[in-house]
């Protein structure tokens, strides 16, 4: 019984999601809303403004470096949390 209700619920959610896909912009078309003034400046000016030949490197280390700072913090706090749970000695100190 539980399986049937869960299956029906998931089926309903699948229908909702598929109806969303039916109106999303076409996959791979150059006229998508995401290919706009933002990405063309990133590609066009990244060699001049950031000196990076790989545009993705220029974005994560220069244009959106604050995000990379947050991501480094995520690794740091996850490592601390793992040490607090698993290590016997923890961080040395009194």
């Amino acid at each position, binding site marked *: 019984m539980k399986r049937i209700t869960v299956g029906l619920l998931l089926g309903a959610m699948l229908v909702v999601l598929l109806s969303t896909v039916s109106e999303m*912009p076409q996959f791979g078309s150059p006229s998508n809303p995401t290919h706009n003034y933002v990405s063309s400046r990133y590609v066009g000016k990244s060699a001049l403004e950031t000196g990076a030949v790989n545009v993705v490197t220029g974005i994560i280390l*220069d244009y959106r470096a604050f*995000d990379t700072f947050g991501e480094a913090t995520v690794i740091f706090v996850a490592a601390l949390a793992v040490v*607090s749970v698993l290590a016997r000695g*923890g961080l040395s100190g009194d």
Partner: protein
Amino acid sequence: METVRNFPVLIIYIFFIGSFIQPLVRNVRISLLLTVAISAVSSAASAAVVYYVRTNGDFLFDVAPWSAPWGIELSIGTLEAFVIAVICSVGTLISIYGIGMVEKEIPARNIKIYNALFLALLGSMTGIAATGDIFNMYVFIEITSITACGIISVKDDKKSIEATVKYLVYSSLASGCILLAIALLYGITGNLNIRYIHHHLTEVMYLYPRNVLLASCLIIVGFGLKAAMFPLHFWLPDAHSSAPTTSSAVLSALVLKAYSVGLIKILTGVFGIVVMSLLPLKTILMYLGSGAVLIGSLLAMTQSRIKRMLAYSSVVQMGYIFLALSLFNRTGFTGALFQILNHALTKTLLFLSAGNIKYYTGKESIEQLKGIGYRMPVTMAVFSVGALSMVGLPMTSGFNSKWYIGYGAIEAGKIGVLIVIVISSLLNAAYYLPVVVSAFFRRPSPGDEIQQPVNLPWFTSVPMIVMAVLIIVLGLYPDPVINFISGAAKIF
């Protein structure tokens, strides 16, 4: 004066840098003092930001030399400055209390880790409030999730590890929903900055209506699970009651508020009043808020241990915030913001005094608290102030927040909300007042006769007394705060 524009990002930086240098500190004393020092400096900086926003209005700040939409910007308005000030000041008071009490509950090898996670938590909550870019907000939400779970599991015993697993699993489920919403919003507008998405969304809203609808539902479900919106609150009692005392205080008082402020920022900034009126948002929030308030109160009455009762009470108080937001008018919004401040102060006070009771007398259940008022007079006095504020007695800040929410309900014509608030105040009295009454007016059980009153060290008693005084002061003179935060409800 223009240097104050740099302060929000500096607050975020010094919280994180303080967290990074915690593992290098030599001993536990210095680690705790470093936490207090950094939180105190951030409180001073946040007070300067509040003063700046009050005189000069909202401002935008580019983090890198690139301006939006190519770089990340912070947008600081009245709401954000207020919430950052609440986070920094309540965090400072909790860390002062922690000087004495952290070593009593957390194993010594984990205390530096605990302080590092605490500072990172405060920094990431400030980031959620301050940022103007939705993917940046997602990164800060993840830091908040991991550190909030980390400060429960540092206690390293069976109950806390189990509660942490439950909290982290549901929290990452919600993060997945939020990331999917960000992906959908990026797919139809091509921007990640909140102002720019809003601008493009008003143009393309009618081309992709189902995408917008799905994105808004995912945002509400995701943030609602993290902010303990009824009925997605089931993880909260275990997580908040099995954590160390200072962690319970931070989690109940600040983390839930940071997520609800993130929800407010995205709903009002990205979607705006037009999209919000298309969804049946008012009805949903009103029913969920009422459910939280009534059913949470009934569940709180059945609890026998203090900390679990306080955790269910947090569900009730968050329900007030969602009820106030569902009214969609200025007075209701002002009431919601004032309730953020009120609950932060009051719930911290209640959790810290419950921690005191547990450490000095070893008692955890409400039944055992008979006559304890003579053994711990200061603790029970401030607990009574906090309990009266939760009930909503006049002259406390709890009364003022319920007053504004009720007044907003009358203005919006929703008398049902007013009735729910009155009933819930009676229910709150049913589970808070027995604790106060039995502490002062009942004889202790024959096992523990009246012993000497406990002498609390200054760093344990001073934060609690400061918070109790603030609750009474805000109850009598709320106008400076009310005048400041009523400027935040610009869109209603």
